[in-house]
């Protein structure tokens, strides 16, 4: 049976460690409210990797920061949002309680490994700090555990490396050290915000492999954010495609690459260099991601969409399931397939009010 609720695929097995409902993060400036994340829902189970992919400015990093509780003024996570980690509603926590969750509960790896290590302290110092705060390990024991962790992330000669400063590490080594530092916190969920973007391709592959090994070892849930379709294909189990603060398509990774449904996803896949060798020019999606400063009353991709029709500018699409065999949904007026355009538009129109009123219908 085809389900059309917006959250149908968010918790397929009911065992998620992190589950997000209707997350809305807005940035208030003097003249507008930018809805950087506009009502997204997702969930991750232990041992699973969920990829979020999208262009720059689509709201991927803000999603990560919202989960971490690191959205600074003038940004704000709206009260209708729900982020449940291991049975705890994070959005209701005080600053002190949130601090307890960070590290030992949810860890995060940032894009630039040089900038994410403090330049004036040794790598060992920063790993030991994570150990002391999250696991109460101090002294010689902390040093020993830190050496083990560096070994785990395949840094050679870890004992000596512990006393070195971040600037003495190469780019790939630094990202390994950051991963070791986050593992020192022993988190259940690891958010990786473009962790491979600043690295060259061979190092990227090594880091992705390392993350997969660690995940298998520790049953870690990983939220992997990137704009690189190749990396997404490599690491993810499921993929959410993000556009202008919303998820436009959610699917298991093979299904997404085999049967992309949303025109935006199709555009992203077409834009990978090398997919069509005969073309003289690279395929692109014309235009830029719009700044979502109004509640969505249309499809935000419509101005750039090659398949847009007039209703696309008037009706906000909701998620519809597009596969009988897979957990695959997309938010586009072209679906559900097999119905007439009027029927489809009517379907989305009838769903729309529920979606804008919060979306958490269960």
């Amino acid at each position, binding site marked *: 049976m085809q389900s059309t609720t917006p959250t149908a695929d968010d918790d397929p097995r009911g065992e998620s460690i992190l589950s997000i409902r209707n997350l809305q993060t807005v940035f208030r400036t003097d003249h507008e409210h930018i809805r950087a994340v506009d009502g997204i829902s997702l969930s991750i189970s232990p041992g699973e990797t969920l990829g979020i992919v999208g262009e720059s400015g689509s709201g991927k990093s803000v999603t990560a920061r919202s989960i*971490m509780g*690191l959205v600074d003024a003038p940004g704000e996570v709206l009260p209708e949002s729900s982020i449940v980690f291991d049975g705890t509603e994070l959005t209701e926590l005080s*600053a002190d309680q949130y*601090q*307890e*969750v*960070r*590290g*030992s509960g949810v*860890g*995060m790896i*940032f*894009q*630039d490994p040089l*900038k*994410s*290590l*403090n*330049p*004036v*302290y*040794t790598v060992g110092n920063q790993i030991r*700090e*994570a150990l002391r*705060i*999250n696991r109460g390990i101090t002294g010689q024991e902390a040093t020993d555990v830190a050496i083990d962790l560096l070994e785990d992330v395949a840094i050679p000669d870890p004992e000596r490396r512990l006393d070195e*400063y971040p*600037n003495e590490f190469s780019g790939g080594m630094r990202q390994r050290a*950051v991963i070791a*530092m*986050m593992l020192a*916190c022993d988190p259940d969920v690891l958010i990786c915000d473009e962790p491979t973007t600043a690295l060259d391709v061979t190092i990227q592959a090594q880091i992705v492999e390392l993350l997969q090994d660690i995940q298998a070892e520790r049953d870690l849930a990983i939220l992997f954010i990137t704009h690189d379709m190749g990396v997404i294909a490599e690491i993810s189990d499921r993929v959410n495609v993000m556009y202008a603060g919303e998820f436009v398509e959610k699917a298991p990774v093979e299904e997404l690459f085999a049967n992309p449904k949303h025109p935006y996803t199709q555009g992203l896949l077409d834009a990978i260099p090398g997919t069509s060798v005969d073309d003289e020019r690279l395929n692109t999606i014309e235009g830029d991601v719009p700044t979502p400063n109004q509640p969505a009353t249309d499809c935000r991709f419509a101005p750039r969409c090659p398949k847009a029709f007039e209703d696309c500018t008037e009706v906000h699409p909701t998620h519809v399931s597009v596969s009988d065999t897979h957990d695959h949904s997309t938010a586009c007026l072209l679906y559900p397939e097999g119905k007439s355009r009027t029927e489809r538009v009517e379907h989305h129109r009838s769903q729309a009010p529920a979606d804008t009123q919060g979306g958490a219908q269960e």
Partner: protein
Amino acid sequence: MNRPLYIAKRLLLGVPVLLFGLTLTFLILYLGPIDPVLAILGKDATPTAARNLEISLGIRYPNGSLVPLWVQYKNFLVNMVTFDFGTSWAIARDQPVAAMIVGRLPATIWLGFWSVLVALFVGIPVGLYAGLNSNSWSDYAASFGGIVWRAMPNFWLAVMLSGLLTAGGVLDGYGDFLIKTDVVGTSNALQHLFSGIDPFAGVPVLEFFWIPVPNLGPMAEAFKWILPAALVLGSSSMGNEVRIGRTAVLESLRSEYVDTAKAKGVSPRRIIVKHIGRNAVIPLLPVIMGEFYLLIGGSVLVEKVFSINGIGNLFIRAAFNSDIPVMMSLVFIFILMQILFNLLQDVLYTYIDPRITLSDTTE
């Protein structure tokens, strides 16, 4: 490259700088329109007296011929490098210059010490506070205050402040407030301070609930006396520290390592003290080190206005009275200090910022 070797190398490189500075000073003083004989004896001196004076000053041989400039230059260099500062020509005839400097050193160091401390303990905390609370009203107040402090020139501020505190100014009561001190002039508070090293001796010990406590009276007196002058002397550094401290904190606050530390679950307090604090000190170091020049060199104007009998005052009197040995000795000491402070700053950098190493580019 190891540290002692680096320091040795830098000291060696300081020698040409020192020589250049001394040569320049020598040329300016000896080739300039300064006539020490005229300055000392006045216009009505007899030729015989002038000649005798010239001989005793070492610019004329006893046989009557003038000492060539290069011989004077050589003598001057040898004297300076061997720390033989000679005797004063004009201010205090035949008194050893070294003794004159040492005698005035306490006042200048006391002034410099407090001007650095006041600036440090006010400027840096205010700057850090402003950075941590950026774009709040307290930040605007602190930043604006920093600019104003920075902008007020010493000579103006010194005159205004001494006027306010004395001679019927608004704050005329300052001298009698709590402890009686002079505001302008060299207080004997300093002599009290330096004569009684034993805090329990000399001045009456205060008894606080029958428990004898060290009498902080002389200290408080000396502090209160120097405070206005120290505020003026430290004003521009204080303003700088507010501005640079604020910027440094803001920059560090927005950096990714702070986000990473938060993601590790580090407490906000610890993030400020450990992760932001040390990074914010790096751009502040040159400002703080720059202040230490005040200890010796920067106080000429302030000492003059507040009539403090220190090195700065000595220097200006030497300049007005053509007392070449005093001027030369002071310039020599200033150059030496400058070289040493620069070296100290570079070495300190390597302790604060591990990204900076002592490898030199010539290798």
